[in-house]
């Protein structure tokens, strides 16, 4: 089975994972691979870092900031005359604090709007940083439980409907083949399924050092070649055993991205990584 198949059937893919696992890289590679399959792709950035335009030349990217989206929302709901004053006086902050999740809802509402517009085959969302994905996606349920009536409750209901429909929205979890990231991915997967009720797309295992084990014995004990081989083998063994553990604990297809030697991630590197998923 082709694990990348889901990009042709789902409208919104939300990329999620803890800080440092390479969410932005995966967002770029996923977008690149989908474009190669002939899809019209939009990437939504929530972090405000304009990195993806550089990593994937020609990519359509929209930046959505929570406070701007909230201001815009209030604007279109009968508060246009006072919005500027609300923003400058900081009342927008107070609204966001008084009703946690409201800014998440307007952001998800904008994503839902883009999905409904039918302009794009696939919208890839570079999810919120530092593992806020669960809170972010729970906002709709949370608001529905506390807010009775009003346009924001309607918005939350629409968002909840989108999140619950696997044909419209799925979450792409990203992890690394190491102990703590795998544990965190398992916890996040359980929370997303049970508490949010969102469908999980294949999980991405990033920066995998693949390759056969080296024959350590071929070099003299204590020699640089021997020490380097022992290190490499230990890393590869760790990556292999963590992938096995992930496979056994989580019934999801895996998409593998190989480790990129060197530390610079540029457009060429993203292009080469996309080759592993969708040959050009």
């Amino acid at each position, binding site marked *: 089975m082709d694990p990348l198949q889901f990009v042709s059937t789902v409208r919104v893919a939300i990329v999620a994972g*803890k*800080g*440092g*696992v390479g969410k932005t890289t995966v967002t770029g590679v996923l977008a690149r691979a989908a474009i190669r399959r002939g899809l019209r792709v939009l990437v939504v950035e929530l*972090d405000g870092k304009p*990195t993806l335009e550089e990593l994937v030349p020609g990519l359509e990217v929209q930046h959505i900031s929570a406070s701007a989206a909230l201001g815009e929302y*209030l604007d279109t709901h*009968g*508060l246009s005359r*006072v919005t500027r*004053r609300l923003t400058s*006086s*900081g*009342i927008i*902050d*107070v*609204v966001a*604090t*008084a*009703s*946690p999740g*409201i800014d998440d809802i307007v952001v998800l509402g904008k994503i839902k709007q883009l999905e409904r517009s039918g302009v794009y085959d696939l919208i890839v969302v570079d999810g919120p*940083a*530092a593992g806020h994905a669960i*809170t972010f996606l729970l906002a709709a349920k949370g608001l529905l439980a*506390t*807010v*009775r*009536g*009003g*346009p*924001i*409750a309607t918005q939350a209901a629409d968002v909840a409907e989108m999140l619950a429909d696997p044909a419209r929205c799925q979450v792409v979890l990203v992890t690394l083949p*190491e*102990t*703590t990231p795998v*544990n*965190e991915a398992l916890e996040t997967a359980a929370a997303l399924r049970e508490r949010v009720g969102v469908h999980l797309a294949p999980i991405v295992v990033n920066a995998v050092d693949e390759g056969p084990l*080296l*024959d*350590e014995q*071929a*070099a003299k004990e204590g020699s*640089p*070649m*021997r*020490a*380097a*081989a*022992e*290190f*490499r083998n*230990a*890393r590869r063994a*760790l990556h292999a055993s963590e992938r096995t553990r992930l496979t056994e604990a989580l019934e999801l297809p895996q998409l593998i991205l190989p480790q990129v*030697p*060197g*530390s*610079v*991630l540029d457009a060429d590197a993203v292009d080469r990584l996309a080759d592993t998923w969708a040959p050009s």
Partner: protein
Amino acid sequence: MTITLNDHLATAEVVICCGSGGVGKTTTAAALGMQAAGLGRRAVVVTIDPARRLADALGVPGGLTNDPVRLDLDAPGELWALMLDTASTFDGLVRANAENAEQAERILANRFYRNVAGSLSGTQDYMAAERLHALHQDDRFDLVIVDTPPTRNALDFLDAPNTLARFIDHPLFKMLMLPTRRGLKVFNLAAQPVLKTIGRVVGGDVLTDAVAFFQAFSGMETGFRERADDVIALLGSDVSRFVLVASPRADTIEEAQFFATRLQSSGLAVSAVVVNRCTPTFGEPPSKRPRAAAQAALHDNLVELRATADAERAHAAHLLACDALANDVHTTFVPTLSGDVHTMEALTTIRFLLFPPTR
């Protein structure tokens, strides 16, 4: 002459570890604490939501709590650790600063307050700063090591003391407290229907709670602001050090660079840099590539790892060349371990990689 990270640990009263998420900041903070205890300091490490594994590694089977616990360590000094619980720290502050129990209860029961205390981004940083203030004055400790929260841009911690000030200086707060002050009167008149309209849009009594919170908070703001000023002064004094933690990845290097520049613009400086998860080096490959296949593969592996390590160092050097970092800032490269850091032994290994024992 370069002042080493070890020198800083021997003399500082406050060490702030900063950097982006996923670079091993918490592990570094714990290893710094172990070293400090080895130097005879009475150190306390404030961690923010560490993985349970770190608590296990530190020998605290039940996990860390909001109160400092002393760790079992064979060292001339002491190592204590705590895990910051934002909401209960905030509750404690409200109780300690309220004029009476009735005011405290009114605030603690307020829904807006619960949202601020539990989920407002920035509150975590602010409480870390409040905690730093209290621990610095605690006679049990002579060194406080803070592992800053994994914030979106790693800068919020510096702004944290201003977070609450932003609320108590809020126009809405002032409007309610000083309804007749001239400049705000117009705003006051306009505000009431606005509050109603907002209520209609977002639903329910969202703003009524906020108004009640600001009213209940009245009179407490002075204490909060004074401590905020104290923390700002403490961070800027010569007893505080900032240790920048990064990894050789391009994005964390950029973030570290940005952070150093930001510190500089606040009149502060990075005291030391720790670059974690570097590809280790294993010495020079033999001058000729061996002909036998097995040996050739080992040779190529050594060459490949070496090239990666060199590229990482070059990248880190680029970070260190930025204007905001002094030329002689002490930098330690910590190689990737072949396993995961979740035992006391692994933590000890990290400590000795950071501070090689002198022979």
